[in-house]
């Protein structure tokens, strides 16, 4: 199944006229069934870190962190040996409030969340260091690690889906992509109740390039 998908992806890359237009990149070689093992760096241009909290029981307020770095040590032969270290800049909150048109009261809502709720001045970094990976399916697994947030470290488990691998058509370096979703209780990290629910959901969609 995976091979078929990769073959299709590779074929579409080879056939891609858009790529040729983007500066005549050489044809990509067929993607191997497995991405190479080893160190990968985050492709921040194709990565998003989204979070959601239930606002007043009405909607899952959605925003992002724009400053995220992740180091991946990927072991495709035994994914349970893979490791991840992620760092999020707590000041990098992006609510898009400033870009929302027609609001009665302009304010720097990004700074308000970063400073008042995330205490970014005292705790500038949110970190996640993986401790274990359990395989749950062909392309899925559970990654448990230590989340350090507001100066408190607690285990959090992410449901990770391996999306795919392919060589970068321009650099020929290998790329892998993942989606990770999880949630934690804000109160576990000492956050007060406030206007939003205790559960915070996080979703990371990321691409990595072989180092």
């Amino acid at each position, binding site marked *: 199944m995976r091979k078929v998908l990769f073959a299709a992806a590779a074929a579409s890359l080879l056939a891609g006229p858009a790529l040729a237009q983007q500066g005549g990149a050489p044809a990509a070689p067929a993607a191997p069934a497995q991405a190479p093992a080893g160190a990968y760096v985050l492709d921040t241009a*194709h990565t*998003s870190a989204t979070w959601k909290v239930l606002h007043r029981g009405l909607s899952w307020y*959605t925003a992002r962190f724009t400053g995220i770095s992740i180091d991946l040590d990927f072991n495709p032969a035994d994914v349970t040996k893979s490791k991840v270290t992620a760092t999020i800049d707590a000041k990098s909150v992006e609510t898009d409030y400033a870009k929302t048109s027609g609001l009665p009261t302009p304010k720097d809502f990004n700074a308000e969340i970063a400073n008042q709720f995330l205490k970014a001045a005292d705790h500038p970094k949110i970190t996640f260091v993986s401790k274990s990976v359990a395989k749950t399916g062909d392309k899925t697994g559970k990654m448990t690690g230590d989340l350090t947030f507001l100066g408190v470290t607690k285990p959090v488990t992410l449901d990770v889906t391996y999306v795919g691998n392919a060589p970068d058509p321009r650099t020929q370096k290998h790329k892998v992509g993942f989606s990770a979703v999880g949630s934690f209780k804000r109160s576990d990290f000492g956050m007060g109740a406030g206007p939003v629910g205790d559960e915070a959901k996080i979703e990371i969609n990321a691409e990595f390039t072989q180092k």
Partner: protein
Amino acid sequence: MRVIALAPLLLLASCSLTGKQTEQALQSLPSGAYQLEKPHASLLFRVKHMGLSNYTARFTDFDATLDFDPKNPAASHVKAVINPLSVHAEHPTDKDWDRRIGEDLMEGKEYPQIVFDSKKVEVTGDYTGKVTGDLTFMGVTEPVTLDVTFNGAANGAALYQGRDAVGFSAHGTLTRSDFGLTRYGSIVADEVEIILEVEFTRRG
């Protein structure tokens, strides 16, 4: 697909209000015109990039009106207008990236509005439904269905100067080639996921 699986969880999580309280709050809401509360609204889209990742970006400028009938949700109607030039993808280095998506790819100058106009609301559960409407995108109108979850209601919300408020989560998928958007088909998937979180308040 994942979002569908999460819908029941999401519903449970929203029930710090119990189901009964949610039901009471819903039933006590007046029917009529509701307006989007923009500070508490988000519209994300997600598309597979090179088979590698679920690329996620956002429209920052959109508005919606809801004609809501809590006693007969199937009689409700929603219309949303999205500014395609308001794409915000948060590219780390390319300052022209958002403009290229909104203007070059979605041809936002030629087609300055993406419009969703609901035609049918089906109730599928206590707090879930399917809203099918006409989506007009790049000059083409095609039906699109959204899976909608009612999260909760607030009677006379202090946050909203005493106005009644209601909140929904919605998601759906569309096939961009249906609307003639075929560019970069070799690296960007044809299927686009839409993720909405919205609050509305009573007007009038």
